[in-house]
């Protein structure tokens, strides 16, 4: 047995808890999971049935845990783990499953196939065979936490420039983007880059919110690797900042995996009660509109708008009605995809797959059912509250010629707030809106 295989098996054993063992043992092979999977819907082949994928891990598990399987592996379909099998498992877990959990909610037994895919991801990460780029991105985030001094000044410089833009957009010369403000009520955790900072900053300023940024971003590639050790190190940066600043809540940017992990996984990883709660920016936007803290014009966006439920936000996170409440307050023509909410079809970009160039073709092919859903709505704008979903739908837009704009919820809210100037990159939309509005008035 090679060292890699030894490490892989050791990691698999370490993960065997009751939920995973139940998933490994409980499947009735009914095949009802097939139609629930976007890979199967895009290409109806046996290899795309979730139960078939899971069987690859089950066969290894049987070999290790069933006496008969060890003696007569051919009889029971057991498989001794070797290098080619590990490579095949890696490919399955990172390119044929986005961990969307649609198969689980449609399984009569509730078999958690994505939990098995996560187990494989953890095995491959520990044995050094996981996709290199995900490991690099997780390690780069950890590096930032170890010594922020190498980027902090540059970050603050960027924020100062964004603040100038913010004042221009809001028409408020006192508008600010606070960083590391002690005692602020909200610690808003964006993604890297201006596009998830400037629009929420406009909203927070108009709502007169007591908020702050830290220097760290929400994305956590350790989650995609199913590597709790790395994921904890990335998350710890934010948890420590929230504690240090004494905030009441952490508000996560429009990002599926970051929200789901901070809301549901982080409390488990750190096995403790926090003095702050975790919410999505979408929940905060809904409250601001409900409480009248921001005024939005429900006629501001005349184009047909549809909403894509990110699996991590809706099915796995429980954020289903909040985004709809916000959108129905800011768009004139809202159109649902079918199916939607907790039965929404995955776009194909989750689970870290958008970062894996080696599987891009497979990812875009698996997004065909989502592309067809979007086409059927006839909407011109597709809203997604998750960065990975937006990147994937951008690729689908190009491949399947959807001719849609893809945007975040906050960007539409800012547009509907009718601020003196549009967000950068939204100037053309403002022009379009003006033309459309003129037609409506006739």
């Amino acid at each position, binding site marked *: 047995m090679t060292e890699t295989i030894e490490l892989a098996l050791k990691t698999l054993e370490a993960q065997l808890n009751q939920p995973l063992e139940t998933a490994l043992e409980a499947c009735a092979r009914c095949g009802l999971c097939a139609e629930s999977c976007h890979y199967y819907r895009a290409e109806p082949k046996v290899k795309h049935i979730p139960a078939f994928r899971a069987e690859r891990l089950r066969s290894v598990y049987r070999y290790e845990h069933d006496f008969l399987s060890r003696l007569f592996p051919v009889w029971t379909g057991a498989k001794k783990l070797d290098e080619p099998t590990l490579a095949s498992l890696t490919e399955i877990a990172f390119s044929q499953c986005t961990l969307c959990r649609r198969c689980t909610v449609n399984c009569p037994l509730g078999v958690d196939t994505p939990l098995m895919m996560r187990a494989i991801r953890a095995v491959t990460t520990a044995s050094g065979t996981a996709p290199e780029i995900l490991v690099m991105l997780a390690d*780069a985030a950890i590096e930032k936490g170890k010594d922020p001094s*190498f*980027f902090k000044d540059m*970050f603050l410089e960027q924020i100062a420039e964004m603040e100038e833009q913010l004042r221009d957009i809001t028409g408020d010369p006192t508008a600010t983007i606070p960083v590391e403000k002690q005692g602020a009520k909200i610690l808003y955790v964006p993604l*890297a880059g201006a596009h998830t900072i400037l629009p929420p900053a406009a909203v927070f300023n108009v709502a007169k919110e007591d908020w702050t940024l830290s*220097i760290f971003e929400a994305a956590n590639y350790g989650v995609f690797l199913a590597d709790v050790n790395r994921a904890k190190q990335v998350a710890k940066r934010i948890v420590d900042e929230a504690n240090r600043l004494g905030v009441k809540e952490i508000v996560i940017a429009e990002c599926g995996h970051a929200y789901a992990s901070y809301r549901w996984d982080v409390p488990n990883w750190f096995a403790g009660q926090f003095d702050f709660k975790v919410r999505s920016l979408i929940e905060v936007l809904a409250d601001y509109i409900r409480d009248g803290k921001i005024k939005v014009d429900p006629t501001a966006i005349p184009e047909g708008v549809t909403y894509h439920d990110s699996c991590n936000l809706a099915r796995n996170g429980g954020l289903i009605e909040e985004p709809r409440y916000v959108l129905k307050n800011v768009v004139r023509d809202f159109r649902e995809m079918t199916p939607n909410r907790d039965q929404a079809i995955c776009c194909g970009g989750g689970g870290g797959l958008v970062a894996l160039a080696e599987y891009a073709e497979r990812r875009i092919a698996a997004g065909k059912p989502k592309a067809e859903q979007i086409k059927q709505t006839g909407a011109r704008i597709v809203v997604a509250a998750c960065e990975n979903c937006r990147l994937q739908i951008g690729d689908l837009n190009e491949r399947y010629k959807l001719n849609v704009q893809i945007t975040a919820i906050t960007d539409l809210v800012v547009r509907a707030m009718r601020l003196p100037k549009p967000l950068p990159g939204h100037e053309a939309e403002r022009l379009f809106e003006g033309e459309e509005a003129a037609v409506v008035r006739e």
Partner: protein
Amino acid sequence: MSDAKLSLDFKGLLCPMPVVKLAQAIKQIQVGEILEAIATDPGVMADIPAWTRSTGHELVSLDKREDKTFKFVVKRLK
């Protein structure tokens, strides 16, 4: 005249895609060679130095330019 073996255009890409593309591109040059890239997402100011630190490559320079783009030069060290 630039010494870069590879010049890349990451304009319009949002983080982490510049890092993803950089990680792919670095394999196309030999150890000791350099590549340069232009990006528009300010996130690269933190992400690129963090990536070079964690992967052991050398960040030769990272500059914000007058046209509000970011230019970075990376040397492959392993």
